[in-house]
């Protein structure tokens, strides 16, 4: 028994080797990659994308040092709670369900979601009737997943992926008939893809609010109100001095 006890203490000690006091000068931001063009890696491993550039600009504005922590989408909110990082900036849509868990900044970007399919598709609109029996791709645990599961889960075959990358690969492989994505991500990974032709099916979708919320926000722990306020002010400054538009132009061709 004693041995068992000392052993569990030992395993705790192993876990605690990575425990440390928080360093206040540095702000760690959790991000899930790849989600082109919002956040992704160059082949040599460098992080880049709209969120990354905007986040770095805000940190520069606030005169603090920021470090990006890569975390899979599945565990991104628990990771914030566990103080693995102090904020999330990872194309996270602000909605009520998440508000129960975290504190959001002001929205810094508001993209619609859209359906994407190969150009050869016979689909002209996404409805319960037209999607009957189709294979739909979504990223697991995203608002798109929730929307598609609730609206079309009974008629279509919903395939859930850990990363947007996996989904695009299966789309190219023709395993999926149609995917539902944040529009900028679909634009960058599918519409501008060299490999095959894709098109948007139907309209951009931003309703109902219950799923689509109020745009992308940074997420903080509920008690870190000051930190959220600092980022809000930095964002305000960047919007006014034009930096925000510069960064936006880098990743999205305005339409």
């Amino acid at each position, binding site marked *: *028994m004693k041995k*068992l006890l000392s*052993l569990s203490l030992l395993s705790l000690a*192993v876990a605690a080797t990575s425990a440390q006091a928080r360093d206040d000068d540095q702000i760690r931001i959790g991000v899930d990659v790849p989600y082109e063009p919002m956040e992704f890696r160059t*082949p040599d491993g460098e992080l880049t994308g709209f969120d990354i550039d905007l986040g770095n600009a805000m940190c520069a504005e606030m005169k603090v040092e920021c470090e990006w922590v*890569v975390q899979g989408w599945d*565990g991104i909110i628990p990771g914030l709670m566990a103080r*693995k990082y102090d904020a999330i900036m990872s194309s996270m849509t602000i909605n009520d369900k998440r508000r129960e868990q975290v504190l959001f900044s002001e929205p810094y970007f508001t993209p619609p979601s859209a359906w994407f399919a190969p150009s050869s598709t016979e689909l002209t609109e996404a409805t319960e009737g037209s999607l009957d029996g189709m294979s739909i791709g979504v990223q697991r645990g995203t608002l798109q997943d929730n929307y598609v599961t609730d609206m079309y889960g009974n008629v279509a075959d919903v395939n859930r992926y850990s990363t947007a990358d996996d989904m695009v690969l299966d789309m190219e492989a023709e395993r999926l008939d149609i995917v539902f994505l944040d529009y900028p991500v679909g634009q960058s990974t599918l519409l501008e893809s060299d490999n095959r032709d894709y098109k948007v099916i139907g309209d951009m979708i931003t309703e109902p609010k219950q799923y689509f919320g109020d745009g992308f926000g940074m997420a903080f722990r509920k008690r870190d109100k000051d930190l959220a306020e600092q980022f809000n002010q930095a964002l305000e400054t960047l919007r006014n001095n034009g930096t925000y538009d510069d960064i936006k132009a880098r990743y999205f061709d305005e339409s």
Partner: protein
Amino acid sequence: MLDLQGYGPRLLEGAGVTVSLAVLSLTLAVVLGLVTATAKMSGNVVAHRLATLYTTLIRGVPDLVLMMLLFFGGQIGVNALTDWLYDATGVDIFININEFVAGVVTIGLIFGAYMGETFRGAFMAVDHGQIEAGKAYGMSSRLVFWRIRFPQMMRHALPGLSNNWMVLLKTTALVSVIGLSDMVRIAAEASKATREPFTFMMVVAIVYLLIASVSEWIFARLQKRYSIGYGEMD
């Protein structure tokens, strides 16, 4: 000859993660295995029941599910603890159950259960007369353990140990699913980016085979060493 498109160094790094993960979890598994085997043979009813519960539960649930439970759930559990600490005392610490720690602990826990069975069988295989002889010489049971039971047990345990190690090595691949950048995850990333899954997955497969072959050789040598004094291996 083989074009890794710039992913070579990261793959090598990933191989390092795989090996260190495997070695650390093996260490934890051996310790847990010895504890479990001792508990099962101790004659203490509570210890025996606990050890049995541990081995049964672990061996009944898939590795991946245990890993996710520990990695995702462990974080929330620890978070509740540190939040309570913050509210109660104002001390703000964060304990980071990162993928690597979660991987080592889960794989160690899983294989500790298997090692327990291996060690128990091996301890039982030690000739009882030798233990009695040791006691007759006035050795304490501690001394009997280290001088007689342990070395002889190792001879019987080695085949099982080697077997468990081979399975453990392959189990490390699962950490790629919870986000640790081991060899498999980097290869998966690379194959998606370059659209060349064959190249990268083949490289990974070959590295696994290499590690397996090297460890086979090491275990054969160990077996030889622990069998000194025996005419032939059984």
